[in-house]
């Protein structure tokens, strides 16, 4: 009981998520490519390494740190059997995100966001609903290039968020932003793979620990 939940919190990188990715992987998956200078959001300037021929390049050192924090956080949430909701309103990767969520055993929402899903859940779903404990944004904008409503709603409902923020996104309300590209297929596949591996690893570890504690 107590040791099961408190032990992982003692270490900074209990699940060793650092080994899942390297700078080279991020570079090959084109995570460092941002949008053009005109699309740049003011609050993304700290995360931008520079600008080449009008195209913003994201600082991969910072991305590595943020990614490690985010993956560690998702691993802890998955270890404690939390509900994880993947959100991406990018039509190109809707199927990929849904399949990733299904394979992890978690949940996805890549469709039109109805207004009261989080804030009005007890009326829309029923009275005993359990809301997600973590929301992962694989693309934090919606189809009209505005910040996704779920960022604000999650902040209202005290749900922590992890989000991949591109150079045109607003990283303000996201608890664990990951500055990186959200438009290339290779980058999205990399993120999906990383999240899937962390969640599965955390869940397997939890099962092992439960069996171990039962035997004791």
């Amino acid at each position, binding site marked *: 009981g107590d040791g099961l939940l408190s032990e992982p919190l003692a270490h900074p990188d209990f699940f060793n998520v650092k080994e899942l990715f390297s700078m080279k992987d991020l570079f090959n998956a084109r995570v460092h490519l941002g949008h053009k200078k005109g699309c740049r959001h003011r609050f993304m300037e700290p995360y931008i390494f520079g600008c080449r021929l009008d195209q913003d390049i994201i600082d991969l050192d910072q991305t590595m740190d943020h990614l490690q924090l985010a993956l560690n956080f998702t691993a802890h949430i998955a270890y404690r059997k939390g509900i994880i909701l993947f959100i991406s309103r990018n039509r190109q990767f809707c199927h990929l995100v849904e399949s990733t969520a299904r394979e992890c055993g978690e949940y996805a929402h890549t469709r039109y966001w109805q207004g009261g899903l989080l804030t009005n859940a007890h*009326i829309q779903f029923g009275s005993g609903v*359990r809301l997600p404990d973590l929301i992962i944004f694989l693309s934090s904008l919606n189809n009209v290039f505005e910040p996704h409503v779920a960022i604000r709603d999650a902040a209202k409902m005290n749900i922590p968020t992890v989000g991949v923020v591109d150079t045109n996104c607003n990283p303000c309300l996201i608890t664990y932003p990951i500055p990186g590209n959200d438009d290339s297929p290779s980058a999205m596949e990399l993120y999906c793979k990383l999240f899937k591996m962390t969640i599965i690893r955390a869940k397997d570890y939890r099962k092992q620990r439960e069996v171990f504690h039962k035997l004791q």
Partner: protein
Amino acid sequence: TLRLIYTTTAAWKKNVAASGPEKYTEAFIKKQIEEFNLGKRHLANMMGEDPETFTQEDIDRAIAYLFPSGLFDKRARPMMKHPTEIFPEQRKIQWGEDGRPFHFLFYTGKQSYYSLMHDTYEKLLNVQKHQDQLAAQDLPPQKEKKNLVGSRWLTKTELEEMLLEKLSDDDYSRFIQLLQKLVMMPCGNIEENYIKKFSREISAQLQKVVIEPLKYDEQGVAFSTGEGARKTSRATVTVYDNGTGKITVNGIDVLHYFPVLQDREQLLFPFQFLDRVGKHDMVCTVSGGGRSSQAGAIRLASAKALRSFVTEKEVESMRQAGLLTVDPRVKERKKPGQEGARRKFTWKKR
């Protein structure tokens, strides 16, 4: 103690999800079913009938006898029905004991619809992959397309029944567009089994009108019958072959029955069209309507009868001439606030 027997108003509340799960737990419904069956046997005993063979109709009659009610609304009267009919079919709770929903798309709101879209899109991707493989091997893509003529897609209500969820028109049209896209692709035949689930055969429209063969009476003369209607007239006609163009209506000769030339021209029209003016005899019975509508009814009936004497091409030409179509015009009803069907009362400025 107050015992909740059954809830009438709660049965018609639309938002079942918000009404609270306690009233409709499975244990509660089971108890209601047991009580219903017990009550059914008691009722059968009371009415002096056999408890084993006591049907729902017998129950309804017994309740109407024991509790006569003069209320106008049938739904307000006392009723005793099986609990599954009274308590609406509620969607079972979508999450387990620990609170985690069963379906991975639960948080979208329309889980069955979106999972359907997800699966269909997956089939589309499979087909594309297959196409790419064939293209890589330099084989030409298969061009056998499924014939869409005799089939239709599911209607919106049928899809709603299948998914047990409400759909909007937009959602439905999107799904149909996705299915069309899947079928239109060259290698779409791979997913035929999947597509068959969403298409229905329409055979009724392809049935042709059956033209009856000629009948022969005692002298060996060929004849055929036809029926026609126009406004309120109904006519039945027998057209005999090897005739002289004699026409009898209700036992009276045509010249006496239809003194007006216009009506007799109407009767003549089908024969004139087929160049068989003096070749057939006709015996008709007609009732209802006025002189012009009776003439129109006999015309339609004789044209239908003549179909048996004539080739298919001539039948088609008759149909195009309008000889075989029933005239749909009937007297329009008078509306309140107007003097007639269309005529308004005289408008006075002041």
